[in-house]
């Protein structure tokens, strides 16, 4: 396997190569605990109430937010020379961009099981809290937009302050994602996808409809943006990315016009997407690694099932809302019936029934919200995440393709050189030999890239699965607890009603 081959040889290379962040990590077996990551605050992944600020007990072994137990990193404090490498637009770059100067030495993620367990013991957490709040409408009419306050509380040293507040609009988030995707996706990193645009939703808000649906829309978006940022910073490489840091800290951000659909960059994006789709169909990869084939299949299956589940949950949310409305209508009707009933005790009982039904209607409403904000949104997020994961697998395929192309080219050059040997054209021969060397280099690079991305993907997928397990566990438990609460309330209401019904004489 590729890992074995690399063992000692690349150790030296780690420091001389351009500091690609992942080069060195495979080799570090030691657990380097960071002193500047105290176990204070924790990330609250999915919170029922919009503002996330869960200060949980640090010693809680079940803490589900402890997503990066294994993410121990060494950060060189002394020289946080951040070369602001800020890509100004999407660069559909094939050549890797070197984003960070600090050389983080992330721990090995594809290690033996024993070491994994050890890591679990040394629970280290990411000390950063992000909340997105206070949506404000700026401007009027079709040019209006919503501005959100992004608050970052952290004691990590890469941030200049303990607490930062900035104002960001939706396109800023999209811009951030776009930059991160262009920088990291081709290396096999799973970049969390940004929330989706919604023309209908935003138009309503712009036009100024202050009704329930636009309020809900803004809340939905706010919550999604918060989850997006939290997921992004959970990824150790992304957390240190200067674009991310700038997004979280700097008060002014250049407007990300390239995220608009009809901009030049937008068109370029569409062209690239089309090209990618064609490539996917034409590259027929010889998969030598069963792990990848298996994983791809798994993610495909997962995609199908999650989408199905998402659709069912959305239907449930809809029907529960309907149930709430109908229960309220029935409550009113029962109250009217109670009024016209001329037997006093029965009349009173019917009014009580109406009250119970009204309370139950509230309960249904709350339950529908839980259904939605807990489960439905989580599923939606994961459907998009899985798309990103599959995209990363596609990137690997592309990298393989490039490598194969380089090999083909090398072959041709060699053949050309062989032919030239009999043609006595010394300059051309030399040129051919130079080209051969050039392409030999490219082939080597191609192979290295391919192995690099394969390694990265293995690690990323491992981490992704761990997070997935935690996310789903946490959310589903929370959801079940909300169901428990509902039933307890129901019992209370009906227990109060029963004596009233029995009192009818």
């Amino acid at each position: 396997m590729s890992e074995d081959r690399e063992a000692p040889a690349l150790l030296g290379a780690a420091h001389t190569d351009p500091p690609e962040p992942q080069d060195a990590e495979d080799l570090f077996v030691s657990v380097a605990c960071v002193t500047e990551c105290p176990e204070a605050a924790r990330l609250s992944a999915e919170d029922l109430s919009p503002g996330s600020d869960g200060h949980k007990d640090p010693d809680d072994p079940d803490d589900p937010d402890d997503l990066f137990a294994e993410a121990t990193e060494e950060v060189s404090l002394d020289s946080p020379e951040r070369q602001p490498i800020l890509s100004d637009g999407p660069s559909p770059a094939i050549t890797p961009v070197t984003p960070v100067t600090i050389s983080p030495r992330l721990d090995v993620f594809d290690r033996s099981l024993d070491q994994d367990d050890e890591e679990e013991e040394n629970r280290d957490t990411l000390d950063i809290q992000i909340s997105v709040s206070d949506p404000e409408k700026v401007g009027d009419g079709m040019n209006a937009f919503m501005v959100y306050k992004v608050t970052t509380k952290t004691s990590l040293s890469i941030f200049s302050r303990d607490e930062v507040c900035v104002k960001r609009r939706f396109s800023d988030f999209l811009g951030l994602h776009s930059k991160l995707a262009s920088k990291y996706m081709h290396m096999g990193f799973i970049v969390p996808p940004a929330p989706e645009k919604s023309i209908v939703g935003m138009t309503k808000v712009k036009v100024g409809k202050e009704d329930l649906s636009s309020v809900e829309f803004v809340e939905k978006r706010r919550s999604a943006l918060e989850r997006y940022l939290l997921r992004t910073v959970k990824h150790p490489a992304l957390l240190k990315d200067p674009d991310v840091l700038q997004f979280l800290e700097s008060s002014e951000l250049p407007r990300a016009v390239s995220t608009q659909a009809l901009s030049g960059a937008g068109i370029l994006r569409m062209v690239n997407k089309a090209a990618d789709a064609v490539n996917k169909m034409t590259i027929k990869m010889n998969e030598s690694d069963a792990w990848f084939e298996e994983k791809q299949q798994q993610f495909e299956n997962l995609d199908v099932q999650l989408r199905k589940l998402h659709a069912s949950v959305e239907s449930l949310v809809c029907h529960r809302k309907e149930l709430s409305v109908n229960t309220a209508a029935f409550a009113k009707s029962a109250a009217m019936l109670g009024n016209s009933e001329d037997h006093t005790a029965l009349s009173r009982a019917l009014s009580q029934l109406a009250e119970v039904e009204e309370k139950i209607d509230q309960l249904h409403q709350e339950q529908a919200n839980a259904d939605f904000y807990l489960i439905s949104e989580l599923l939606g997020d994961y459907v998009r995440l899985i798309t990103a994961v599959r995209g990363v697998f596609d990137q690997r395929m592309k990298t393989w393709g490039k490598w194969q192309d380089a090999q083909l080219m090398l072959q041709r050059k060699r053949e050309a050189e062989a032919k030239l040997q009999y043609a006595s054209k010394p300059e051309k021969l030399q040129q051919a030999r130079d080209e051969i060397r050039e392409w030999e280099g490219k082939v080597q690079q191609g192979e290295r890239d391919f192995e690099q991305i394969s390694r990265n993907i293995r690690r990323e997928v491992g981490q992704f699965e761990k997070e997935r397990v935690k996310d789903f566990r946490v959310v589903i438990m929370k959801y079940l607890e909300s169901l428990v609460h509902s039933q307890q309330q129901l019992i209370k209401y009906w227990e109060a009603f029963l004596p009233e019904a029995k009192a009818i004489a």
Partner: protein
Amino acid sequence: MMQEGLDDGPDFLSEEDRGPRAVNVDLQTDATLQVDISDALSERDKVKFTVHTKSTLPNFKQNEFSVVRQHEEFIWLHDSFVENEEYAGYIIPPAPPRPDFDASREKLQKLGEGEGSMTKEEFTKMKQELEAEYLAIFKKTVAMHEVFLCRVAAHPVLRKDLNFHVFLEYNQDLSVRGKNKKEKLEDFFKNVVKSADGVLVAGVKDVDDFFEHEKTFLLEYHNRVKDASAKSDRKIRSHKNAADDINRIASTLYTLGTQDSTDLCKFFLKVSELFEKTRKIEARVAADEDLKLADLLKYYLRESQAAKDLLYRRGRALVDYENANKGLDKARAKNKDVLQAETTQQVCCQKFEKISESAKQELIDFKTRRVAAFRKNLVELAELELKHAKGNLQLLQSCLGVLKGDT
């Protein structure tokens, strides 16, 4: 795709409650005449009820006997009561509604069409659900037909009706065909005339306080029951829809559980199992609400209409009486046909007084029955809701316990 002969034999009706399924009516059955529907058979588009009678009355040839009747024959019996002048002063027990499996049939058909788009397990599950629904509707229609017969059997006067006895005993087909188009049209016009007349009659202020109060009360009550009945139906439908969604969710979770390569697989399977069980409970809640609340309201919608009809007949008789009085005065004034006018007036007077007397008692009984039925049903509803909520709670808590223990 209809189930031919969904007759499970005697077991079918031997569920929770044997004996008169008088859910909505509080009846005293006495040994002299006991009627029930002991069996029922569902065929293509009709239902055959086996009406079983036990009686010590001398009118019948035997002490115990059974006949097979269809819905149209029940309607014939009901209509014969309505058209009988002798019974004008009674609340005629409302006719049972026609067995309606259309909705269920449609759903089963849709399921058949959509068979390709779902997994085998899902399909079997949904099929079972729909069959259970069909069975529930079936039981309800049986119950409603039975209640009608029991009400008649419990009524001191109606139980002696000859048509009723023929209905119970005559073991051949009564050859009561459903009304043809012409007759249905006639009925329609009759109803139009009746409603117009009813408005006129209702306008006449009654001297008697009791009846005046009853008139106002029944009018308002009837409308509100109608509204409550419709709204409760809608609510229960939403509830069923939500339960169906949970069913689908449980299935998908199960598939996820079998496919997942991480620790989540056990998690998903457990949660899927939980949702399967809670979904069944939710479906039961909806079914019980349907039985105890929706059916109750529907029944009293029909009964309050029957009571209104009684008031109408009395009102009509009152108007006739008053007209006869006027006629008599006129005849006496002109001294022409006085005897005839006197006879007419006497007849009307007797008719009116007879109706008034029995109507008063009927309306008082109606109130007693109604209060008792509501009490019984509301208590049972609350008890069932509690039972189901507690069941749900227990399932949820035990599952949470297991899941937490696993981490």
